[in-house]
């Protein structure tokens, strides 16, 4: 069965690269350009994994993360947070808000691809 | 006993009293040539009051002196002040 990944990122070229990696790894990829879009997308369809950028228009990654964790439907959704600011404080905050992984840009596509696979396979399959 | 802090007041009181006694109008009462025991009244008056004033001044000065002496044991001699060398 195919797992779904929601990519939340405002930088089109980065979205393009993520789409390529995730599709290659066998995921269904959905894309949101800002925080609001992301929340609407999750409302619409609960993904297995969210790749969430922190610097987003309208609503930043932290609040989106908080919203996902506050939503009962999304108990098992995995979250990988992306940040272009390599600040320890941001990482700590992300982990405290319930992110599973924290990746600093620029990231390695190889490591990120492997990380996504590991996280998704460790989680119980969501009954459809 | 007169307290040390009042030595000036004592002096001034005595001074004012003496002024009153030595100047008119009080003076006029006693300034008479009449003889008492063959001594002129004014002569007796002046020398008598004068002697009393001296007596009271002496009393004031003595009392203070005694008090000062008592205190002197604790305090250095303050009577000679300022840089002054002995005659060489």
């Amino acid at each position, binding site marked *: 069965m195919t797992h779904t990944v929601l990519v939340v990122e405002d930088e089109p070229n*980065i979205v393009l690269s993520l789409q390529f990696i995730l599709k290659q790894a066998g995921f269904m990829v959905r894309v949101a350009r800002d925080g609001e879009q992301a929340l609407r997308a999750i409302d619409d369809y609960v993904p297995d994994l969210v790749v969430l950028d922190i610097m987003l228009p309208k609503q930043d990654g932290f609040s989106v993360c908080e919203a996902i964790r506050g939503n009962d439907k999304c108990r098992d959704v995995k979250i990988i947070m992306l940040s272009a600011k390599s600040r320890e404080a941001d990482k700590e905050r992300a982990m405290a808000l319930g992110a599973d992984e924290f990746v600093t840009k620029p990231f390695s596509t190889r490591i990120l691809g492997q990380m996504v696979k590991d996280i998704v396979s460790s989680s119980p399959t969501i009954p459809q | 006993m007169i307290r040390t802090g009042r030595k000036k007041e004592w002096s001034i009181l005595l001074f004012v009293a003496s002024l009153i006694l030595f100047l008119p109008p009080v003076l006029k009462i006693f300034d008479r*040539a009449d003889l008492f025991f063959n001594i002129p009244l*004014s002569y007796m008056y002046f020398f008598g009051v004068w002697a009393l004033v001296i*007596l009271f*001044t002496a009393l004031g000065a003595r009392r203070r002196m005694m008090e000062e002496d008592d205190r002197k044991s604790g305090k250095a001699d303050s009577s000679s*002040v300022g840089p002054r060398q002995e*005659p060489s």
Partner: protein
Amino acid sequence: MSGGLVLTISILYLGLLFAIAQFVDKRADTNRPITRNPYIYTLSIAVYCTSWTFYGSVGLAANQGLDFLPIYLGPTLVFVLWSVIWVKIIRICKVHRITSIADFIASRYGKRAGLGGLVTIIAVVGTMPYISLQLKSIATSFRILVSSSETALLTAPSDPIFFIDTTLIVAVALALFAILFGTRHIDASEHHEGLVAAIAFESVVKLVAFLAVGFFVTYGLYNGFSDLFSKAQQKDLSGLFNVSTDGDYSLWMTMTLLSMAAIICLPRQFYITAVENPDESYLRKATWLFPLYLLVINIFVLPIALAGRLLFDGQTADADMFVLTVPLFHDQGILALIAFVGGLSAATSMVIVAAIALSTMVCNDLIMPLLLRWRVLNINKNDDLTGLLLTIRRVSILLVLILGYVYYLIASESYSLVTIGLVSFAAAAQFAPAIIGGIFWKGASYRGALTGLALGFAVWLYTLLLPSFAQSGWLPISFIENGPWNIALLKPYALFGMEGFDRLTHALFWSMLVNIGAYWLVSLISQQTAIERIQGTLFVDVFGHTDDEKDSRYWRGSATIADLQQLVGRFVGGPRVAEAFNGFAASRNINLRKSQTADATMLDFAEKMLAGAIGSATARVMMGSVVKGEIVGLDEVYRILDETSQVIEYSHRLEQKSAELEQATAQLRNANERLKELDSLKDHFLSMVSHELRTPLTSLRAFGEILVDNPDVPLEERKQFLNVIIKESRRLTRLIDQLLDLARMEAGQMDWSLDNVDVGAAVKEALAALEGLMKENEVQLDLDLPEALPKVRADRDQLMQVLINLVSNAIKFCDKTTGKIVVEVSTQDDVLLVSVSDNGRGVPEDVMSSIFEKFHQSAGTSENKPQGSGLGLAICREIVTFLGGEIWVANQPTGGAKFSFTVPRSDYLQTRLSAE
């Protein structure tokens, strides 16, 4: 009685005095003198009793009864107030090493020579009658004693002895004696143990002599007081039993006041009581012993006077000489001789002390300042001046006595002793306001004292001294009777029509009125100098300050110990100064090195030592010649001195300090906040830079890896990925360029090449560069560019960058479907106005103010994240500001944002520069 015998006795007596003085001085050199005790001190104050007391009181009592008494009651009253007045004056004299009354007054009012000189002149002129009184009494008593005729008892013979006027001989003899006696030491403030002992001895002699005559008269000739008084009453002399008066006691009160002033202000009394006081505590004894001495010496005045009147009943005998003539009449030769010696002692003691006091004043306060002023004294030379000082003093003693003799010749013959003496008292009384005011009123000023003294002295001259010349025939008598130039209002005995008072009361009233009045008034309206205020405070608050050694230091200059020692040595004598300095150093536990710079205490010590020799005013000038640097910080010193102002100052400063502290705290708080702000700004900036750099880097790395890891990517996709890489690296380059530009601009390290730029051309060029972008976004451009625009002063490339940034922003934010951009250029006064507007959504109000900040991201203005680094507008602002223009943004009513900026016109800029 033979003249030889009397002469021998007189010379022996004077020799004895000299011996006593020498003996005591010798002993004083080796150890603490036995003569230093309150009794000797008290007896020395009794120098107050002169021939006036000895002979004159009897003379006065024989004519006017108890009128002689106020002269002794006044001093008694002043000594009752010892703890208020004397203690203070004595303390001041000690602390400031005062040498005389002139020194005291000059020192109090700012150590200025003028005042000291005036006081000296008044003192010398005022003492003149007093000295003549002594001369007259000695000469008369001598003549009476040596002539054995009966008539001599009634009218003293005026035969000259040795063919010269007896009085002149007496004057010269006394002068020589006073010179020998009084100028053995230089330091006038030092205690003259010998002198004091001799004066005390004289006081004993005159008291004993007078009492001897008194006893003889009262108990030898009569059976005690009651017998004498009742006999006198029988002879109708009871008018002498009380105060002779017509019912008003104005003369009585005047004399009381005068004598009160005199006991303080007579130069010799001031000198012996204050300057020569060896120990303040002696005053406690003297305060009642001295009045007692006065009382005792006066007990027999009235009896002797009555006896004289009874004896020479009806005959015109010289009552002033009863003390001598009554014993002589009864053939008591020995007693008469004793009386003569008593009179001699009374006169000589006065003459000696007065001569010493006056000569010190003449030397220190009159001659020395003049010598200094006329630059006769080369103060920088190193001569020993002790000899000069001594000579000046000796000459002045001689002068004082000669003056006394001259006054005697001119005026004394026709007056009684007491009348002559009171003229002197009235002169001395002129000092009273300046002295009493000076020790109780800080506000009294130099000008006030000078004016008061001068006016008081002038009135004294006019109402007392000049008339006495007139009465003796040296001035036309009409001067008294009709006034000068027949102006009745100016009659010296009835000034401004004030008649009906005795001359003394009249003179005292007017002189004191102008003296006190001027002193008061001028003090109030004149400004005190710093040193006057300091001295005023030091004098008035003498007890508050003397406990603290450091208070009276004014000097803050540089002089070496050697300089000081040399200076003081010239006036006091080298070895003595060295000794004194060493003593001073030892007392303070310091080592003196000659080359060492003297500290304030040392300077103060030296000045006071110098003041002891030559007076405070002169000492000040002398010190000033050695101490380099002004007497700086007088006001500062004053502030420290004045306790009240000190407290006020202190609390004021405290207030100020706390306010300052508050201010500092606030500033610190602000600075801290600003720092925090800056910190967060920097933090923000760094994280933004990081973000902006990492974003393109992420794409670069991601697609790089994808392309490497996936060689089988279709060509189409590969091309797309490679294009992304190129675009992102361009973006990265641009970002780095912008960052560097901005950093350089902010650091002021940008290389600007300013020139006269044609804005129209620049605009066209910028638009041409963006033509591709506009086409790509289907944006319509509307250019409003007038012909013949003035040139602007700018860097062409940077101006282009501003235009490109603004236009590309406009392209980015204009309406996506029907994008339209308007670029306008117009002339406004001295600037060109360029504006770029779009038809987008406009700038939200909340970011309006921060839109030109670095990394202000206009997030949320559109669905898509705007392309750009967030540095463009910040750079625009930097450039425009540097070029001297302004940049701003406004939303148009029709929608869309309008960015405008100005650039100064080069022609206006030039005129402005040339105008400056």
